[in-house]
């Protein structure tokens, strides 16, 4: 164990174990120390190892550490091996660093909750599972982390279990992601039978020899893996669980449903990029799914009341951008957007959590307002986050990452004008709903009394995250802004470079259009919600627009659709078959024998003459048979 790599996941695991077994005996301070401390330590170790890896890493830029052999059966060999390369480093960094901040925030946020230790136990377990997911050297171990984060997500969405609605949301999240996971498992089987291994590095090495470009098998594998990613990352068509998942506490939404777990799909696809590269079909499907999701989620976000649901749909939409980037072959851009998004979306969720907490658990933005002056720290940090989300040019990190994606959507190998147009429209909508959210929450008159203000443990993480939301974009600048490529250089050790099919020189035009889209969105939001709110009322009068709004509000009717075609039939079938129809077969046999019994016992009438008749008939039959044969 010369390498402390194993400590990164082990520390949160230790925290989990301490809290799970001793949580009821610890004071709140101790719980917070164990819960948040373990993740902070793990973040520190990450930074330590990360710097070492970047400065004086081994050849190939990968740390690898085998702990023990997990399964070894008939040529199937899966080891518990942790691998740290550039891609996983970024994820580990985001998980531990943002995770640590969110834990600190939670120490304040959850102060009043009676299940303090359970919360931190689950959070620690989540961090552990997520770290296993990204550090796994083989797909099976990754699957372990993959399901582990699903479990934690389930536990934390349903954290306030007294309310059955929360439990429902939690189950929905787990079940829907399970659908994707199962497809992914089948994908793993195919990978194994095709390549004889589940070790990522081996697959990466073997893939080009194993499969030809666009072979059916590889497409199928890619699509199955994609299904897993789609489920986890709340993309079409398995996206419906994410908005409901907002039933969990806000730090949970920040950590799991914004920064880390929901981007596991991105990680998976990036990790398995060789397979996707071999299949144009799969790649396009990824891009199309991303584009469709970003648009649908954007429109839905435009109509929501609940601040957290707006953020949830925006998360879906942003991950849609990442998928789009992956789909067009802009691998690094996707990972870059992941990182930036993690910062600002965690920030937004945490800030929203602070607001909700202060307003007595008021989620409805229309009942907020006027918080600009009353909660300045939250306002400013939220503003920075919102700016990043809306991709305000130059100053926000979101601009750099999203602009890159927009540009690649057109210009990268798999890009097309249509994808670009969709992405651009998405940018416009994003800016619009972000503005709407800002205005409704912070401007206008105050509608709800503020209970208490967030403490230091909550504000400091906000400030740190706000800082990163501002500066994180500067580690990767476009070609025409100094062309600073720290991030993509790092990534290119693992991920292939993005192939461009158009000239770099035209990039400025796209940047301009993106900026215009952002400002257009901001203007729209401002126009309808800030300046002339009565116009919205007018629009609502319109029958058709109101219908459209309802359609968008419901998330494009996916929930209803699934309810009708899947849930209802399932429940119906199980309900009518509760008593098990097969059992009828056996009860039938029993009733037949009972009927025979009744029939026969009637012959036992007690009448001697009847008995004699029986004997005589028997004798006649016997003699008859005797004579005939």
């Amino acid at each position, binding site marked *: 164990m010369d390498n402390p790599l194993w400590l990164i996941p082990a520390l949160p695991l230790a925290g989990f174990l301490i809290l799970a077994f001793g949580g*009821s005996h610890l004071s709140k301070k101790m719980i917070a120390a164990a819960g948040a401390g373990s993740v902070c330590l793990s973040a520190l170790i990450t930074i330590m190892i990360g710097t070492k890896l970047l400065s004086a890493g081994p050849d190939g830029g990968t740390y690898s550490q085998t702990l023990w052999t997990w399964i070894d*059966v008939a040529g199937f060999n899966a080891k518990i091996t942790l691998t740290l390369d550039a891609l996983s480093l970024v994820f580990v960094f985001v998980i531990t660093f943002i995770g640590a901040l969110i834990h600190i925030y939670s120490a304040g946020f959850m102060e009043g909750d009676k299940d303090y230790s359970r919360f931190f136990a689950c959070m620690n377990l989540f961090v552990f599972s997520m770290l296993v997911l990204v550090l796994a050297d083989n797909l099976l171990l990754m*699957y372990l982390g993959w399901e582990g984060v699903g479990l934690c997500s389930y536990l934390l969405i349903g954290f306030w279990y007294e309310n059955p609605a929360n439990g429902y949301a939690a189950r929905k999240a787990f079940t829907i992601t399970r659908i994707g996971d199962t497809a992914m*498992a089948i994908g793993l089987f195919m990978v194994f039978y095709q390549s004889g291994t589940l070790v990522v590095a081996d697959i990466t090495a073997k893939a080009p020899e194993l499969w030809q470009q666009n072979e059916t098998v590889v497409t199928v594998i890619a699509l199955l893996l994609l299904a897993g990613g789609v489920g986890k990352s709340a993309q079409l068509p398995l996206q419906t669980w994410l908005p409901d998942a907002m039933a969990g506490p806000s730090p949970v939404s920040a950590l799991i449903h914004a920064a880390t777990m929901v981007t596991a799909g991105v990680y998976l696809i990036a990790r398995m990029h060789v397979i996707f590269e071999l299949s144009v079909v799969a790649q396009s499907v990824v891009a199309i799914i991303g584009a469709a999701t970003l648009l649908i989620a954007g429109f839905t976000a435009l109509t929501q009341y609940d601040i957290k649901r707006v953020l949830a749909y925006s998360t879906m939409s942003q991950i849609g951008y990442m998928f789009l980037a992956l789909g067009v072959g802009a691998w690094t851009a996707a990972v870059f957007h992941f990182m930036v998004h993690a910062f600002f979306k965690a920030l937004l969720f945490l800030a929203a959590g602070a607001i909700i907490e202060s307003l007595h658990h008021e989620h409805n933005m229309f009942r907020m307002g006027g918080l600009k002056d009353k909660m300045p720290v939250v306002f400013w940090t939220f503003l920075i986050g919102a700016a990043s989300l809306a991709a305000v040019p130059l100053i926000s990190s979101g601009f750099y990452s999203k602009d890159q994606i927009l540009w690649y959507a057109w210009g990268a190998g798999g890009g097309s004008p249509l994808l670009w147009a969709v992405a651009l429209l998405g940018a416009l909508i994003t800016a619009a709903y972000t503005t709407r959210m800002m205005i409704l929450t912070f401007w206008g008159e105050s509608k709800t009394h503020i209970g208490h203000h967030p403490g230091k443990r909550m504000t400091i993480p906000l400030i740190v995250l706000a800082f990163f939301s501002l500066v994180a974009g500067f580690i990767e600048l476009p070609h025409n802004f100094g062309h600073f490529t720290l991030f993509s250089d790092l990534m290119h050790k693992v991920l292939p470079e993005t192939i461009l099919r158009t000239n770099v020189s035209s990039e400025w035009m796209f940047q301009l259009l993106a900026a215009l889209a952002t400002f257009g969105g901001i203007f729209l939001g401002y126009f309808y919600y800030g300046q002339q709110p009565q116009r919205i009322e007018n629009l609502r009068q319109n029958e058709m627009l109101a219908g459209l709004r309802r359609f968008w509000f419901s998330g494009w009717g996916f929930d209803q659709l699934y309810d009708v075609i899947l849930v209802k039939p399932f429940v119906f079938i199980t309900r009518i078959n509760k008593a098990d129809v097969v059992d009828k077969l056996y009860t039938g046999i029993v009733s037949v024998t009972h009927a025979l019994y009744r029939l026969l016992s009637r012959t036992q009438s007690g009448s001697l003459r009847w008995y004699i008749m029986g004997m005589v008939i028997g004798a006649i039959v016997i003699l008859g048979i005797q004579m005939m044969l």
Partner: protein
Amino acid sequence: MMLALLIVILMAGGLTALLAGKWNKSFPRWIALISSTAGFLILLLFWIDQHQVVQVSSDQNWLVQYQKDWILSFGITFHLAIDGLSLLLLVLTFFMGILAVLCSWEEIRERTGFYYFNLLWILAGVAGVFMAMDLFLFYFFWEVMLIPMYFLIGIWGSENRVYAAYKFFIFTQASGLLMFLAILGLYFIHGNNTGVYTFSYVELTGTVIPSQVAIWLMMGFMVAFAVKLPVVPFHTWLPDAHGEAPTAGSLILAGLLLKTGAYGMLRFVIPLFPEAARQVAVPAMVLGVAGIVYGALLAYSQTDLKRLVAFTSVSHMGFVLMGIFAFNELALQGVVMQIVTHAISTGALFILAGMIKERLHTRDMNLMGGLWTQMPRLGTIGMVFAMASLGLPGLGSFIAEFLILLGAFHAHFWITVVAASGLIFSAVYSLRIVQKIFLGPEKGAGHIPDFSRREMVIMAALTVSIVWLGLYPQPVINTAKPAVVRLVQLLQPDSDIKSEQSYVR
């Protein structure tokens, strides 16, 4: 000698308990605990001692055996022998035995002597089944476990116990008799072929049987094992028996009796009728998948907690059937794992159901809810085993189901795809259990105590085992390996499945 000793310990312990029960109501449980623990320790020491041998040996068939003449006139010997597979199952038997005694500790207050007598004799029967190397002896033990189980359900069960006991008994006995016919058929065919009339497993394995007859004989065996396993559509005794049995009864039913079905298929059906088994492989796998899906659907709709868990067993055992008839090492190792882990996870769920019933006096999930508030420990453990039941990686069940699916995938693509949907269904019903019982608003008023120390010990043992099996299943896999490899070689004598390359195109 050790093998006979194991059975003697249990049987003698049972008789002693029966007699001691006359004097004092708490003697029997101590006797039962001591005898099952003694057996467990003996086996554990043996396992540790043999660990290297198990890993290495592949040509030597049996680790240890014991043979004595019994009914010579019919060529019946008292022949016990174990290989790695049997060893695992025996360890499991005694482990479950200890837990069964522990979880009956407070639950059973009446007629304790007779209760523990039955309990120990069931264990003896099961242990005998796992060791018998003579088909007559096997059938003998197969039946020995029935009567005590019948009493266990019929006397100490809940309201509908008599019906459940009948159903259990008649199903298993009817199918067992068909197996007995098949055993006799095999006996005479072998006798006619060679002139040696014997029930010895080793002798009979090589019997040359006309394929038309072989199918029928195999069906005789299969029916018995299919009822025990249980395979849809022979499963309907299971929910009743599980539902009505006392906690220890459900535990042993789920943990051990169902496993005898799987063991029977592995030990008898395939080695005795490899050709015939291959012919029915696809229908059998389809039945397995039907079990997975159908069991899960039924589990979802149940409101009785124990019935629900019983139907999950149907679903999980579907994996076993599918794995067995996938005929490759991966799937078979998965089957072995599934046997072990299902015993632990489902056993734990039944114990939990028993604990809840002790506290709330109901099995109806509609009357439960919000138990987490008062019983966080019980809730946590419940969550762990619900997760085990849905096959969460990191817990033993995942390894089992993953290996089975992986192996089955090699054998048949589409069947496996449908079977994989079982993973989704299992999530649906498992989470429903958790939701209905532990989560939601608190239903009942009044104070409900959380785990006692004894219950903690039981649950800790189970939890540690399931996590251990999930993270480091290799000891189990290694122990079962020689037996599994031999099975595979039996089925595919020409192909060298050991090489890694065979999976690659």
